[in-house]
């Protein structure tokens, strides 16, 4: 009888622990989704984080409207998180586009602005140039602020339309490209994942090959293994500080994509070495013997027989690494920066989604936006995991019968 009570008690604790773990997980993911899902839409994924103000030079060229008034009213490409229509739209022939007046309302600010609501296919707006002469296009939902030096501020929609129509020369329009999206962060994150894996995976695999296939077991190998284990336990801020001192300052790589990915690659190395080593150890000795007995060299044996057999294990390492890069914030904050832009070169800064979420939550206190970024992060991690799982199944030599 006493034993049964004990058994049930232990069982109860097991179920309770599982229940708590599961509910915490569901609660966190649920919290992020509930808080953030309202902000996630197409604009959120395709726009830059910051607004961009610039002058556009546009030909003054009449283009007539190809749709009727009713259809024009349906074209409301406004960012419904912040904008609501108050007047318009009105079609203006000489820019081949329609403009509308909306209220813009964000946390602290609220004001009226003119936005482009519809653009004809061959409108001159699609073929504009910026102040350096570089070709660019003005899209819908861009805000227009002034034309040929005259501000739209304080004008009604009709007056603004008339002002545009009355221009006779080339048009110099001050436009604002709308922000509020995380496209640049998504792209930076993908760059960061790719680049750090490209650096860390070959290094890790070759290191693991040395440890399992070449090094004589003994104190030296044990020391390396111990070092790798210690490295994987060190908080990433330490790596961040090192990266900042070494890559950013000493090597003069600046706060950049390259500094960030090198730092993260160091963080990834221990994980990759350990899992690859485990994977290599599980390859049966009989394969190595069989290959050597056929007159293959050790290197041929390793690359043609042993390594392909270890692919599933290496894929696990890649999976773990992807999660690690996407989730990394402290080290990247110090080495890759918080600039929300698509890094143009290896030496440009850029913030990943996680850094952006940190920045938004900490500096702007915008929890909803941080949660929205969180949703994107979760989705990216899931997608990348599925992709690498599929790839490792495709490469798994034991799967093909």
């Amino acid at each position: 009888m006493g034993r049964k009570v004990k058994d049930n008690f232990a069982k109860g604790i097991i179920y309770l622990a599982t229940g708590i773990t599961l509910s915490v997980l569901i609660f966190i993911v649920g919290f992020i989704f509930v808080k953030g899902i309202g902000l996630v839409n197409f604009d959120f994924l395709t726009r830059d984080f910051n607004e961009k103000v610039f002058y556009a030079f546009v030909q003054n060229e009449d283009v007539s409207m190809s749709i009727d008034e009713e259809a024009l009213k349906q074209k409301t490409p406004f960012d419904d998180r912040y904008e609501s229509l108050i007047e318009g739209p009105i079609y203006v022939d000489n820019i081949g586009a329609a403009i509308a007046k909306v209220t813009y309302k964000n946390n602290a600010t609220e004001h009226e602005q003119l936005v482009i609501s519809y653009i004809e296919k061959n409108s001159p707006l699609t073929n504009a140039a910026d102040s350096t002469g570089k070709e660019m296009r003005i899209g819908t939902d861009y805000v227009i602020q002034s034309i040929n030096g005259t501000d739209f501020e304080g004008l009604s929609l009709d007056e603004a339309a008339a002002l545009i129509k009355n221009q006779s020369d080339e048009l110099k329009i001050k436009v604002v490209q709308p922000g509020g999206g995380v496209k640049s962060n998504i792209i930076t994150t993908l760059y960061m994942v790719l680049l750090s894996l490209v650096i860390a995976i070959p290094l890790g695999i070759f290191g693991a090959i040395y440890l399992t296939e070449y090094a004589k077991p003994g104190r030296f190998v044990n020391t390396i293994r111990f070092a790798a284990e210690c490295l994987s336990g060190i908080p990433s801020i330490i790596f961040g500080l090192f990266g900042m001192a070494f890559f950013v300052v000493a090597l003069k790589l600046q706060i950049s994509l390259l500094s960030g990915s090198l730092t993260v690659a160091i963080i990834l190395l221990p994980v990759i070495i350990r899992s690859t080593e485990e994977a290599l150890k599980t390859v049966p000795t009989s394969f190595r013997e069989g290959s050597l007995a056929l007159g293959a060299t050790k290197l041929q044996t390793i690359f043609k027989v042993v390594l392909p057999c270890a692919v599933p294990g290496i894929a696990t390492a890649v999976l773990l690494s992807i999660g690690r890069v996407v989730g990394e914030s402290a080290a990247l904050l110090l080495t890759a920066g918080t600039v929300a832009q698509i890094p143009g070169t290896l030496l440009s800064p850029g913030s990943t989604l996680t850094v952006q979420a940190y920045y938004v939550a900490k500096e702007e206190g915008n929890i909803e936006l941080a949660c929205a970024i969180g949703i994107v992060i979760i989705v990216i991690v899931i997608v990348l995991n599925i992709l690498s799982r599929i790839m490792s199944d495709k490469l798994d030599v034991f799967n093909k019968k």
Partner: protein
Amino acid sequence: MDKKIKFNTKNLDLFYGDFQALKSINLEICEKEVTAFIGPSGCGKSTFLRCLNRMNDLIESVRIEGEILFDGQDINGDIDVINLRTRVGMVFQKPNPFPMSIYENIAYGPKCQGLKDKTQLDKLVKESLIKAALWEEVKDRLNKSALGLSGGQQQRLCIARTIAMQPEVILMDEPTSALDPIATAKIEDLMSKLKKDYTIIIVTHSMQQAGRISDKTAFFLMGEVVEYGETPVIFTNPADKRTEDYITGRFG
């Protein structure tokens, strides 16, 4: 009887650390014959076999003294081990086809030697499979994984893989111990065909097998060769009492 001697070992001693596994082995192995090594577990017959293509190099603590002459050349001296292993192939106890296609398994060795020509490789694969009596069974599935074959087929694939290297000697380390009787019979059949072209040295636990297929037999015990001679003589009229005890099943 005047066959050429392929392997000649002189006072061969082998140590695993402090433990002496082979004691002063003197054996002459003739060309194009089947030579069988029999003896109880742990008697050193597999260890000796692995000396012949230097597979013991893989084990850290092994130390070898004495000479192994292969065509008159000492293989423990300064020789090209890779070259030795292409001339002395080996088939292992457990079938160990690589996890790749049947074709790739056989083309593996020649490719490692640098053979790239597709037509030559095709021809070599086909010939090897025919010699290993496996062609008819696998000719339609050359690009399927070798892991899908039965145990007996896998072992014949391993033999074909060895043949593809065009070796002079084939070492077989209990090649049928993991197989059923039918697969075993096929492999034995194959061996008697192969001995026309190759020198075959086989380690076996089955005395019947040694009796059926071998021309000469060596009886190993505790790291020594107790008796070596023509198989019929060993089995019907052994000179040593210990050999007689073993083959009549009194121990081992």
